[in-house]
């Protein structure tokens, strides 16, 4: 295979090329695009989607799908804020994140029990819990915005890792919450690539039957996957809160399809067994770029959805076609009788 078709043979490759092409076109339209400031802005804007996506990638790799992640994130973030404001207990900001992750893990456990324990279909269960968690949040916890967030959250939101001026003299900064994405990315990468647990996830995603026969306890692994995905969603929720500096219970839900699109673009397959951290982050980056920078190019809002749709079809379809074509060529070039 030529090098081009080798790149095009993986979804990450297609996505990467599209991203480059896209950036090139944008920079032609607006020379201000190709600057470190733009990169930092994009990173900042992909934080929440990125964290969600890493959790969803784990689920997808195991052959499941999780559309409830955003509802878990919203619930965990709002509940955390309610608890903290309610008990008036002084704890460091990391405690906020841990509490939110714990609540997320609890909600994930319910997903896990329904899916792993009872063996129900993942799409049905998570569609149900998406509505359930959101309904519970709005009914029992409240519908009002919390703008009076603790001082600590504001301080955390204002402290930045990198701060620079862009071409037109405006400040661009990467907030501390970038570390959350980094932490989750490294954690998931280690888990998926260097632990037995990670291998089991891919094995189950590849073939549940085969995984069961080699002695993997599928139920237990599945429950744990959803607990971890829930905890990650909790972290994403809290990150969203620090970025927006307020707790809005109506936020987050609605972006789950964007998250799944990013993960699929990043090479995870809905059918399971595939998915990498790097690919997922690339997918997130491209989706964020499309969502936020088309404005710069003067493209109307509706086009963004159109472009993302095309990308998903091409990005996931092209590698499969190339793979099939390569196999076909291999077959016909094989000597007869071999």
């Amino acid at each position, binding site marked *: 295979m030529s090098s081009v078709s080798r790149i095009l043979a993986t979804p990450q490759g297609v996505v990467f090329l599209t991203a480059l092409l896209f950036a090139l076109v944008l920079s032609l339209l*607006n020379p*201000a695009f190709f600057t470190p400031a*733009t990169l930092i*802005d994009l990173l900042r*804007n992909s934080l*929440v989607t990125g964290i969600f996506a890493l959790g969803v990638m784990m689920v997808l790799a195991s052959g499941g799908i999780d559309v409830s992640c955003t509802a878990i994130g919203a619930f965990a973030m709002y509940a955390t804020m309610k608890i903290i404001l309610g008990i008036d207990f002084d704890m460091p900001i990391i405690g906020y994140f841990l509490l939110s992750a714990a609540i997320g893990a609890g909600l994930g456990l319910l997903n896990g029990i329904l899916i792993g324990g009872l063996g129900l279909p993942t799409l049905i269960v998570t569609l149900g819990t998406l509505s359930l968690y959101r309904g519970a949040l709005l*009914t029992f916890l409240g*519908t*009002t*915005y919390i*703008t*009076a967030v603790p001082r600590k959250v504001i301080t955390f939101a204002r402290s930045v890792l990198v701060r620079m001026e*862009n071409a*037109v*003299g*405006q*400040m*661009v*900064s990467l907030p501390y919450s970038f570390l959350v994405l980094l932490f989750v990315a490294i954690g998931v990468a280690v888990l998926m690539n260097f632990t037995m647990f990670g291998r089991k996830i891919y094995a189950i995603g590849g073939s549940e039957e085969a995984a069961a026969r080699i002695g993997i306890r599928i139920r237990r692994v599945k429950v744990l996957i959803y607990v971890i995905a829930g905890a990650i969603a909790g972290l994403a929720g809290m990150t*969203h809160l620090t*970025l*927006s*500096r*307020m707790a*809005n219970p*109506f*936020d987050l839900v*609605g972006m789950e399809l964007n998250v799944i699109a990013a993960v699929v673009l990043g090479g995870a397959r809905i059918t399971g067994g595939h998915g990498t951290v790097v690919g997922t982050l690339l997918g997130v980056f491209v989706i964020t770029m499309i*969502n*936020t*920078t088309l*404005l*710069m190019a*003067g493209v*109307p*809002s*509706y086009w963004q959805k159109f472009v993302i749709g095309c990308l998903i079809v091409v990005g996931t379809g092209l590698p499969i076609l190339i793979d099939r074509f390569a196999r076909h060529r291999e077959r016909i070039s094989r000597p007869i009788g071999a």
Partner: protein
Amino acid sequence: MVRLEAMVANGTRKQSINNKEDDMKFDFKKLALGVALGFTLLGGAAAVAQDAKHEIVTVVKLSGIAWFNRMEAGVAEYAEETGNNATQVGPASADAALQVQMIEDLIARNVNAITVVPNSPEALEPVLAKALEAGIKVVGHEASSLENVTYDVEAFDNAAYGVHLMEALAQDMGGEGEYAVFVGHLTAKTHNEWVDAAIAYQKEKYPKMTLVGGKIESNEQQQTAYQKTKELLRTYPNLKGIQGSAGEDVVGAALAVEEAGLTGKVTIVGTSLVSVAGPYLETGEIKMISFWDPAKAGIAMNKVAAMAIEGKEVTDGMDLGVEGYNSVKLDGKVIYGQAWVDVTKDNMDEYDF
């Protein structure tokens, strides 16, 4: 539900659409029972010789939230002032079906007038028609499309409100420079009416100002408004003003302006609530927010209802004796006030919602 949707006049609400179907399936047996009950009670009520006091009940979208608590205070104030028996009820969740049930009960009780802030105007039409048939006066609010009402009270005319916001923006921008406008959704009727009127007014009165980026959609999400404002600032570094429509727009824009270190260089005005935009009013990123006071709307609705009971007509240019409704515009059954409230850093402490 103090989402700013609650402030959107014409009830173009997501929830409304969902609820519509439920109401179509409304149980006819219950309806018949309600009617029967209503007639029985009618006899009883007539026997107890009522004095001239009117019984007016206000049905709101949702009880227990700050917005409608404020309205309830207005209703209570009206009751105290006039001696009429004015009260407020509302369902525990913003559900049109529950509102239908409440109005059924009120028809059964044979109250003199019902004032209503519908979750879904269309879903309430049949039950309101029944109320009118029973001789009960009906006054709507945030529902100018309602057919089966005696009157509908709107805080303001959408176009006039848009012009008002633009005037505030233009004043602070010095009448020149680039500005951008946000709408919650490109399909949100009210938001578009505000913004269209504002843009038309700018073109006529402030030709030195230029609109950039067209109408920008925030999806009523603060983070979307934030991201798009950042893009705007980068693409149009000379941007001097932003007008928001959904309550989240100005907050997202303010966050972007603050982070970019441009506080004071970009004027932000728009519709929002103190409870949402408060922090940025205080720090100065947001110049002014507008909304209407639900307490005043509650009083105005009750006054109109009392007039209807007494057989008096509302006329164009009339003074309802409520702040913001001093010279109302009558368009068919719809009564428009000029009841917007402007809030800046200086008077934000007066509003707790």
